[in-house]
């Protein structure tokens, strides 16, 4: 769980968006699951104090390597850019509960911005000879998507649709629009005329959605899926202290039979059933 991971590769993918790739070799790859994350100690002093959570984006068990992608947003990620290949990083992980890996049927990965990162690991983990996988990804513009992982999607030969805010790649607008029309099409073409009841069970469908991105997008994705009766798993973000479930810092709220309950994003998540999440309450 606590591991000194060796830095195999650390490179800047895009200066404009401050996107970096970090490949670590160590104990974590052996047990990592898609959708799990690691908690990194950045710097040797007490400032910044807390670890930083990053999703495990790729898992190479054979080589014992995991790949992380990160965007520089604040002090911690800025300091992280200083670490050098061959040095080692103090990493806690793999942490959390990841995505459900479908054994068959159809899997739709819906990503907003850097929300694509944890989805890579799921994409690579499913048996694509049995599961039909498709990616829908929304981002600012073509450059961002190219830097943040389009080459990986192409390399893996997975079908994808893009949406960009400026229309420089794919459809202009939000990824939720892509999802909406696609689900509508699928449903109609499959002539599945279930009434679109929110909360329809997963059994109704061979299609399932896994989504990651900003909270507003995840809420919209969940609503669309619920309307179409498609099960959806969402990967949440929350400010974390311990990362292991001890501090209760990172909770979300879920609906249960006995009312609203808190769940720890780092322990019971970061992946949750979208329909259980209470989106409009802090």
């Amino acid at each position, binding site marked *: 769980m*606590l591991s000194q991971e060796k830095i195999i590769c650390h490179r800047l993918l895009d200066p404009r968006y401050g996107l970096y790739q970090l490949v670590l070799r160590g104990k974590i790859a052996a047990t990592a699951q898609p959708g799990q994350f690691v908690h990194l100690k950045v710097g040797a002093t007490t400032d910044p*104090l807390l670890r930083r959570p990053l999703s495990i984006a790729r898992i190479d068990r054979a080589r014992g390597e995991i790949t992380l992608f990160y965007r520089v947003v604040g002090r911690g990620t800025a300091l992280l850019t200083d670490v050098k290949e061959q040095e080692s990083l103090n990493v806690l992980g793999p942490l959390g509960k990841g995505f459900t890996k479908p054994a068959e049927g159809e899997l739709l990965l819906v990503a907003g911005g850097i929300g694509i990162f944890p989805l890579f690991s799921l994409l690579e983990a499913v048996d694509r000879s049995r599961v039909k996988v498709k990616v829908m990804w929304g981002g600012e513009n073509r450059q961002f998507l190219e830097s943040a992982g389009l080459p990986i999607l192409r390399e893996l030969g997975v079908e994808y649709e893009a949406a960009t805010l400026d229309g420089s790649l794919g459809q202009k607008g939000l990824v939720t629009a892509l999802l909406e029309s696609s689900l509508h099409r699928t449903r109609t073409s499959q002539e599945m005329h279930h009434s679109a009841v929110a909360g329809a069970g997963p059994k109704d469908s061979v299609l399932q959605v896994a989504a990651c991105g900003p909270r507003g997008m995840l809420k919209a994705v969940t609503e669309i899926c619920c309307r179409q009766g498609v099960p959806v798993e969402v990967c949440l973000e929350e400010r974390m202290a311990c990362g*292991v479930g*001890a501090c209760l810092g990172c909770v979300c709220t879920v609906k249960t039979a006995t009312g609203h309950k808190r769940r720890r994003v780092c*322990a019971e998540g970061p992946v949750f059933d979208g329909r259980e999440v209470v989106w409009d309450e802090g």
Partner: protein
Amino acid sequence: MKVDLTTRLAGLQLKNPVLTASGTFGFGEEYARFYDLALLGGITVKGITLEPRIGNPVPRIAETPSGILNAVGLENPGLEAFLSTYLPRLEKLKTAVIVNISGFSLEEYAKLAAALPENSCIAALEVNISCPNIKDGGMAFGTDPQSAGEVLAVTRKQTKLPLIAKLSPNVTDIVAIAKAVEENGADIISLINTLLGMRIDLDRGRPLLANTMGGLSGPAVRPVAVRMVYQVYQAVRLPIIGMGGISCWQDAVEFMLAGASAVSVGTANFINPLAPLEIINGLEAYCRQKGYHSVKELVGLAHRKEEPFDEEKR
């Protein structure tokens, strides 16, 4: 040379003087994956209230320079679930368990103390009169000597377990509070709880924490905590559990020299889950190096007029 790490604080007998702090260690299970909790002096579990609490909305955590703010708001399963679900699991950890209790009235404190069994793995009760993250209650009790004393008095009547009074640092005169709890039946004093603080999110132009304010912990507060331990040691006779920013054995020694008989590790668990173990080992090595046979000899040394280690100076 063998160093005796055992420690006795009033009725609380510990294998070694290193505990974990309430609210930073769940009910122990999360860190039991990292090491055998029986190696610790003991653990303090998350603060329990009479009723279950869902706590504050998120964000609950904000990082600050060498510290963190938290506003968890005492989320906990409540007394009943604690007794039925968590206590049996705690029994299996084979470590001294300190149960931290918070009430919103004197009556609630009394009920909690009465309900927690005297013959179980529970080694002591820590009476939290200092939680800054809940409205009407918690900290209010701990910022006034009179009401701090009352909480201890009512709790004392309900249990034979050693009572630890957990003090708030958000006070003008920590010594007055310490004396009040001493006079009202506390066996041990623990300090400090968190300092009240806040951050503002520049992007949103609003307080960063959903609860507006939160409790500051971590290395940033250590100088304040050491000072309060030092002051309380001078003024009261009760043994002290020191905490506030302890991250390594040097920090633990600092608290013991200031007057703490035992220490609690809080925020440091989040950064280094092995911190408590490393501190136990470091304390032992330090005693050996300085020629102390027992870790108890460190307690309060900094109060001596002469320099205790003068012989070793050059």
